[in-house]
């Protein structure tokens, strides 16, 4: 690679990275992103812009990334396999890179039946592992999936992938991570961690296979904003594991927002100590303005290496 992205630099120097998610709006108003980004500036090393998450139509990840670049913030673009075939996926990687996007996270994507266009046709020409391996070949070998040569500029991508340590079958989760690493992932953002026992068990296995030396794992952190949100995530969101002790804390809380914040701080302080965890990825759903306090109260501020 020619030069390092800010996120890559932080991780390469062995510093504990912080990334944060910015949900793009259901509309074309750029201020919805600018306002959120203004609040978060300086509190994370790079910012994910999601790609029509939960299959709900929003401003595109690439478009959102361009807004961040104009603000001189570092974006992490997300690309899901749900809405594009291999032609469009490779083309978007080139287009994003040409405009200065350096980090891209590749996911298979939430099924269209969850979203606001359940009658849409899902594409799923590739899965995330195949896409990651294609992008690695584009970057390192200058070839497209078809074997054709890239003629003018290999995309210089720091490749990200998602991992869910909590889904079934649990025994297969580290194997799947290993496949994502073999395919070419440079960093991993995990599903939100609430179940520390399970996360620890997963990380133990990750470290015992030395995978923590091959990839940077950022643990997912989601502050719970209310009991309602806790219950929705616990009972209805696929792949989320909220154990009963966390649920009970939220149920008994006089001030659920305060308790949710304090649970998130406890989780950050806990994952900071876990061997092999190289950072956190904060997803504060509809609560992005809590992120500065979360980062400050867990001694992750200022972001020393942040170039911005």
């Amino acid at each position, binding site marked *: 690679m020619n030069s390092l992205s800010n996120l890559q630099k932080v991780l390469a120097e062995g510093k504990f990275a912080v990334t944060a998610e910015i949900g793009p709006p259901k509309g074309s108003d750029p201020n919805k992103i600018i306002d959120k980004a203004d609040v978060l500036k300086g509190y994370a090393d790079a910012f994910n812009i999601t790609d029509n998450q939960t299959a709900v139509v929003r401003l595109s990840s690439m478009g959102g990334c361009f807004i961040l670049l104009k603000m001189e913030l570092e974006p992490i673009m997300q690309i899901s*396999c*749900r809405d594009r075939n*291999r032609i469009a996926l490779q083309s978007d990687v080139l287009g994003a890179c040409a405009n200065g996007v350096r980090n891209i996270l590749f996911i*298979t*994507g*939430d*099924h269209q*039946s*969850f979203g606001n266009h359940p009658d849409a046709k*899902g594409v*799923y*020409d*590739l*899965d*995330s*592992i*195949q896409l990651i*391996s*294609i992008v690695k070949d584009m970057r390192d070998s200058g070839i497209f*999936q078809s074997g054709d040569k890239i003629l003018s500029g290999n995309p210089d991508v720091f490749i990200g992938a*998602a*991992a*869910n340590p*909590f*889904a*079934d*079958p649990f025994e*297969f989760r580290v*194997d*799947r991570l*290993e*496949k994502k690493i*073999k*395919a070419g992932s440079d960093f991993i953002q995990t*599903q939100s961690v609430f179940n520390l026992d399970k996360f620890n068990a997963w990380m133990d296995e990750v470290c015992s296979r030395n995978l923590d030396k091959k990839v940077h794992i950022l643990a997912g952190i989601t502050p719970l904003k209310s009991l309602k949100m806790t219950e929705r995530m616990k009972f209805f969101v*696929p*792949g989320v594991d909220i154990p009963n002790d966390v649920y009970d804390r939220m149920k008994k809380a006089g001030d659920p927002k305060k308790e949710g914040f304090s649970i998130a701080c406890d989780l950050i302080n806990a994952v900071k100590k876990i061997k092999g965890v190289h950072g956190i990825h904060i997803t504060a759903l509809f609560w992005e303005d809590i992120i500065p306090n979360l980062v400050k109260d867990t001694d992750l501020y200022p972001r020393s290496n942040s170039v911005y």
Partner: protein
Amino acid sequence: MIITRQKNLEDILCSIEKGPVFLVGCSECATLCHTGGEEEVLDMKKALEKKNITVSGWVILDPACHFLNDKRLLKSHKDEISKAKKILVLACGNGVQTVSEIIESADIIPGTDTLFLGEIKRLGDFEKRCSLCGDCIQDLFGALCPIARCPKEMLNGPCGGAIDGKCEISTDLECIWDVIYKRLKEKGQLERLKEIKKPKDWSKSTEMRRIL
């Protein structure tokens, strides 16, 4: 087998507008699905007549997707067909088109929705098994097909959404990756799942095999 589901009567009446109607069933898949066998064709006849739509006749093709057989059988119903303005076909999407190649004097109306290539688990209980992709790779997955049975068609699954062996999109649907994992584990072949499966060659499912 090709699994079909009969359209509801209101929609069929809407497509027919007015008769007379000639009814076509199929001796194979639609008979086994109970959507277009003799019994269902006669029930349809009764239902249409109750709505004051004349039924000029009916036939069960053997099977509806067989062009030459259809030609022969339909010839013997020439008079009844000539009286009809609409032909209601209770067979799969293939049957509809084969009939339409033979009968030109009337409009052809599909009376079923063709759903998938699947298994009859028990009476009235069907499950998709094959997407007709033209390039069978089930040997890699313990003779189970993730293309047909995973809603995200993942070849390097499972995704992160399955809980207790159920697919994230419906608790009625088993996560086929959970089944694949368990089957390969039993066979001592879990190593197979560690290989990265390359992108599928979809050219084998499109232009390459429209004609054989």
